[in-house]
């Protein structure tokens, strides 16, 4: 019964969405409103006003910074929800002895070989993310994957020790916090949310800071998911 209800809701929502999509101008058609007014304006002044060398980043972190802020908050909320569920499972779950079975030596050695390159790739995505389109989030996801792989090799305990709980508690929230600070600073100094200050290098620095916050937030969300799953029956 509940399944049928859920299916009905999904079908209705999907129908509404499809109806909405069918009203959109065909993608790429030059006479859609988006292409005639908004896009032209972005392309004309986007790089200069946005402070980022890349147009996609300028749109993501400046023109649509409020949207991005919303996305960051959604990810953070998902992390909080999973941690809440995971922690309740933790207290009920049967206690198990620490692993008898060591990780496969093949997996272990291959991770040891690849990890430095994955780390460099993650930092590349985060730090150069404002030059190339949309890097911070992907970079953070790779960083999170790297931490999870390292926890296979070094054991989750050592990863937990590397990320001590109080620091982790606040850095998990780093992305929403940094975004909120930027927004409020813009409001206070220039009169509107997410206003960026004048010298170009300062703008670029702030954008790198935002990318770093997104990246670290994404990484810790991923690691948080994994560690709560890992801790479920054990330790």
């Amino acid at each position, binding site marked *: 019964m509940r399944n049928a209800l859920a299916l009905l809701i999904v079908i209705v929502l999907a129908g509404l969405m499809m109806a909405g999509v069918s009203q959109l101008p065909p993608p790429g058609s030059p006479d859609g409103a988006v292409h005639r007014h908004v896009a032209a304006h972005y392309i004309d002044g986007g790089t200069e006003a946005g402070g980022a060398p890349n147009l996609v980043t300028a749109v993501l972190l400046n023109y649509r910074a409020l949207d991005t802020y919303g996305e960051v908050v959604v990810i953070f909320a998902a992390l909080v929800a999973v941690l809440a569920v995971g922690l309740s499972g933790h207290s009920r779950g049967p206690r198990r002895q620490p692993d008898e*079975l060591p990780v*496969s030596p*093949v*997996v272990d050695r*291959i991770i040891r070989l*690849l990890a430095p390159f994955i780390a460099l790739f993650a930092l590349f995505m985060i730090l150069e993310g404002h030059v190339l389109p949309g890097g911070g989030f992907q970079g953070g996801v790779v960083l999170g994957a790297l931490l999870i792989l390292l926890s296979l090799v070094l054991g989750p305990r050592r990863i937990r020790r590397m990320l001590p709980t109080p620091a982790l508690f606040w850095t998990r929230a780093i992305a929403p916090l940094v975004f909120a600070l930027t927004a409020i600073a813009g409001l206070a100094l220039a009169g509107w949310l997410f206003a960026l200050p004048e010298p170009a290098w300062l703008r670029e620095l702030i954008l790198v800071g935002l990318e770093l916050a997104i990246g670290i937030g994404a990484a810790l969300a991923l690691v948080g998911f994994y560690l709560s799953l890992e801790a479920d029956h054990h330790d």
Partner: protein
Amino acid sequence: MSELLLTTFAAVLIAAGCLFFLAGTIGLLRLPDFYCRLHATTKCDAVGAVLILLGVALIAGADTQTVRIVALIALIAISSPTAGHALARAGWHAGHRPWTREENDEPE
């Protein structure tokens, strides 16, 4: 002329890669148990992906794209057998018993 030759060669590589991917898919669907399916997918995925990426690298020519494709080829060549091994070992230690011909005279 040599351009045509290069494109033809790239096309052959990509087509061969697609053939191997198809074999991997059929193997995944038809073979009788998890270990046999891993045989098919690990080998065919590694070979198919590397062949297609080589073909694409030929088309892209010397470019920033090509070095990334080479990095991807190295990643797949290392990760494909490792992932195959990790999954096989997982099944093995979870107690998954391999399919044998004596027990199941009729395959599939």
